[in-house]
Each structure stands twice: as C-alpha cells, then as structure tokens.
C-alpha cells in the first residue's frame, strides 16, 4: 500500500471576525481519498475552517483570512485562478439541505449546465447516473419534474450531495450534514460517504463522536479555534495524547 498522499495542506491559517480570533494557527494535512473528520463542540470554528477551504469566506464582510491553503501545489487563498474553478473542485454539503429553487431534474442538471453541458440526451443520462449514485433514482424517477423542496429532508440532503458531485470535484466538504436528519437518513448519508471515499477526499465536520468513530480515517480535534490534537483515527480514539482530547472522548462516550 502506498503512503497516503496529501490533498489539502493548510499552513498557519488564521481567521479573524472583526477582533475575534476565530481560528488560531491551523496546520493540517488532509489525506487524499480518505475521510477526514473535524471534531469539536459548537462554536469552536469548524464551519469557518470549512468555508476557508472553498473561499466562501469571500462572501462575508468583516472577516480576515491569513495563511496558506495548498491544493494541487497552489495556494488557493492567494491564487490568480478564477475562484469559480477552485470552487468547482469541491462539492459542498451544508448543515441543512438547500435545494435550488427548481425541480429535481434541474437540481442535478444545474451544475452540468453551468459547466457548459447543454445537450438534452447527455443531461438525461448524467442526471440518472448521479441519482443512482446516491440511491435516489428509484424513489424519484417518476417525479423528476416535481420541485426539489417536495422531497423529504433526508432525500433532499442526498440530492444536495449528488448536486455537489455534478461539477466533478475531487473533494467533498460536509458541514454536519446529518445533524438535521432522522437516524435512517443519517445512516444513508454516512454510507454514501463510505462508498464515495475511494473517489473523493472527504472533509466532514461533526460534533457527534459516534459518527466520527464510524467513518473517520483521520481526525482533527478542535477547541476554541485551536487544534488540540490530530492523527489517524485508530490512534486518536485508542491512544489520545492530550488531556483535553481524553476528557472529550470520555465525556461523550459515557
């Protein structure tokens, strides 16, 4: 087995919201085609970290981002490349499903269309392909023209995952994607992540320890904007080094 390659390298990342130092000296090497779980209680900066990765931080006023995020040898924070191309390399799954205000078919086709694919036949094939990939095809194939908001939350979240895949990303960013879902839908999403992992580098934010244990290959534990400990999942869960990690693991597991 070859040694794990690094997909994303974060160097000395610091983020300020006004005077609030939200992320402090973050250094992570996110391994390729593995599931990296970012763990920590709410408010510790997980969402902010994720938003730095595809520069959604650009959309906020009063925010300052310093440091480097290197993907494919290029620092995306200071890159001259078009930001839309950078974002297309990453699919985003947010805490709540935000289906686009259109029908199920077009939710999937949207990403293809804005990448310049317009042929009806091609679109039909790809829509089916992506819906099958997230096990939604059988459930929706007869109602592709219905608004996406008519689906259940769990279905919507799977649809959003598929929508993110249509722009052909290498990376999937997911921000507590199951926190609003019922257990069955959560499991479906987790399973999808495990299936997709051989093709995609996944960065998953969660504050449920059990979920992290089930699917993580690599774990980053954060507390109040700092990384307390990070490492391969086995090591992190079975042999934590820092006192804060130990008490965190104890606290949630008993």
């Amino acid at each position, binding site marked *: 087995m070859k040694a794990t390659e690094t997909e994303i390298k974060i160097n000395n990342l610091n983020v300020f919201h006004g005077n609030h130092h939200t992320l402090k000296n973050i250094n992570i090497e996110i391994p390729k085609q593995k599931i990296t779980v970012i763990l920590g*209680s*709410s408010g510790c900066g997980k969402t902010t970290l994720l*938003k730095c990765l*595809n520069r*959604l931080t*650009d*959309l*906020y*006023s*009063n925010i300052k981002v310093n440091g480097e995020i290197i993907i494919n040898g290029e620092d995306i924070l200071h890159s001259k490349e078009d930001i*839309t*191309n950078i*974002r*297309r390399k*990453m*699919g*985003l799954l*947010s*805490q*709540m499903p*935000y289906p*686009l*205000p*259109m029908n199920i078919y077009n939710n999937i086709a*949207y*990403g293809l269309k*804005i*990448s310049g694919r317009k042929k009806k036949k091609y679109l039909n094939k790809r829509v089916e392909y992506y819906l099958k990939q997230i096990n939604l095809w059988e459930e929706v194939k007869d109602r592709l023209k219905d608004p996406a*908001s008519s689906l259940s*939350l769990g279905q919507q979240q799977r649809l*959003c995952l598929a*929508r*993110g895949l*249509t*722009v052909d990303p290498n990376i999937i*960013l997911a921000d507590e994607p199951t*926190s*609003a879902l*019922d257990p069955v839908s959560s499991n479906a999403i987790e399973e999808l992540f495990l299936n997709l992992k051989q093709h995609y580098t996944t960065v998953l934010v969660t*504050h*449920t320890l059990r979920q992290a244990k089930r699917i993580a290959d690599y774990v980053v534990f954060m507390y109040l904007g700092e990384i307390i400990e990070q490492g391969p999942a086995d090591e992190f869960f079975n042999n934590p080094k820092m006192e804060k990690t130990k*008490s*965190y693991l*104890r*606290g*949630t597991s008993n």
Partner: protein
Amino acid sequence: MMTKKTEENIFKVLMVLSTSIIICGFLLIMGSVLIKGLPTLSIEMLTEVPQGGYYFGKGGGILNAIVGSLYLSLGATFLAFIVALPVSLFMNVYLINKNKLLNVIRYLLDLLWGVPSIVYGAFGFIIMVYFGLRTSLLAGIITVALFVIPIMIRAMDEVFKTVPRGLIEVAFSLGSTKSETAFKVFFKQVIPSVVTAVLLSFGRAIGDAASILFTTGYTDSIPTSLLEPTATLPLAVFFQLSSPIPEVQNRAYASALVLILIILIISLLARIISNKNNLKKFNIKNAVNKRFIYYKNIRNNYNLSYKKRRKSQQ
C-alpha cells in the same frame, strides 16, 4: 397607586379608540366618495373623452384620464422595474460581503423614499426645461419612475434580504459566477416577491398627483405618442373639484372612485400573490422549524452530556 388592572384598562381603551379612529376615517372617506361619486358614475363617463363644455357640466367622460393614467403608470412601473430589479439583485448577491456599503445604500434609498413627490415633480420639471422638453407622457413617465424606483428597490430588497445565505453559498460552491447565482438561482427563489413589489409600486405610481403636476400637462384627448401631453386621474380629480359647478364636483368624486377601484384591484392582486408566497414561506418556515427543533434536541442532548463531562472533570 395605579393597579395593574387600571393600567390594563387604560391601554385597552386607547387601543380601541385609535382603532376606531382609523376605521371611521376609512369609512368616512369611502362613504363620501361613494355617496357623491357613485350616482354620477356612468358608462358614458368611463367610455368617452370630455366633449366641449364638459367642465361646465356638458356631456362626455374621463376616458382620457383613465387611459392616460394607465399609460403613465404602466410606463413608469416598467421603467422603474428595469432599474430596480438589477439594483436589488446587485445589492443582495454582488454586495453580499459589503455590509457597510449596503447600509449606506439602504439609508440613501430610504431617504429618497421619504422625499415628497412634489420634489420629484419639481426635479422632473427642471430636467424638462433643461432638455427643452414640453409637458408630455414621456416626461411624466420619467418623473414618476424616479419617484417609484426607491420604493420598488426597497420593497424587493426587504424580501431579498430574507433569502437564506445557505442557498447563495450553495450556488457559489457549485462554481456559479455572480450573475449565474443572481439570475439562475436567486431570482427564481424571489419571483413572487418581485411581482408583489411591482404591483405595489404600480399602485403608488397611479395614485400620485404631485409628481405629474408640472410634467404631464393635461389634455382632453387620448395621447397617441409619448411626446404628447396626457390627462391623468389624480389631476382629473383636482381640476374638476376646483370647479364651482356642483355637477362637475360630483364628477371629481366619480373620478376618485375610479382611481380608488383601480388601486384596490391592484393591491388585492398584490395581496393574493404575496399570500401565496406567504403560504409557501409558511411551509418552508414550518419545515425549518421542525429541522431546528430536531437540531436543538441534538444540541441539548449534547450540551447535557457536555455539562456532565465538565462536572466529572471538576
């Protein structure tokens, strides 16, 4: 000492009083317009232009003013729309990360909203004189559009602001450009509120007299080009009411009745559309609430265990 109960009663009386003042005011206005205008209102009034001597009580109608007002406010609303929609999209998609600038823009627009329409009329007049334009439909359309634009922008903006940030982020994260986000995603989400804003603005445009006082002129014929002057309903009311002849005065009330009816229909339409919109929003809100409650439960459980942990640490 005032007890809770007397305090309560005082406020109750105040509330009932002010509510009745409003309702009475409305009924009085509607009543007097109806009593004086309705008997005079006839098919002839709605379908004919003034004949010679109309303003001394002879035959004819106010078709010139009805058509003129519709031309004027349709034109002005259209003109305002093609300015207001891009501006409000620009504010809410392109300037999403410029909070301070947005606050300034919104403040300025609110100021413009508050400027009395007679000032727009005077401004329109200055521009007309400058360009050597005569009083005309076009000059009126431009002036009323200027007056309506801030209203329309803010009406759209207030609803656009409520579009969840998550949706915008999702659009961007798919690699959409700003214009794709604005027109292909954001706009689709807000179409009902755009329609509402346009209808409300139309109501404002057709009802205003001061902004067209100097700019549209007045004529007894229906305008056949943008450069001709035109009659309008508010000014029809004004001129006829200034007449000493009671019959003509009653025609002013009939004209007012027509104007009120048009505005009523428009705002009813706006109401229906925005209610449909509200209905949808309500469903979304419900869904969000359900999610939120679910999420809160998880969070609470989590916090509980967190507190336990903290305790066990100490």
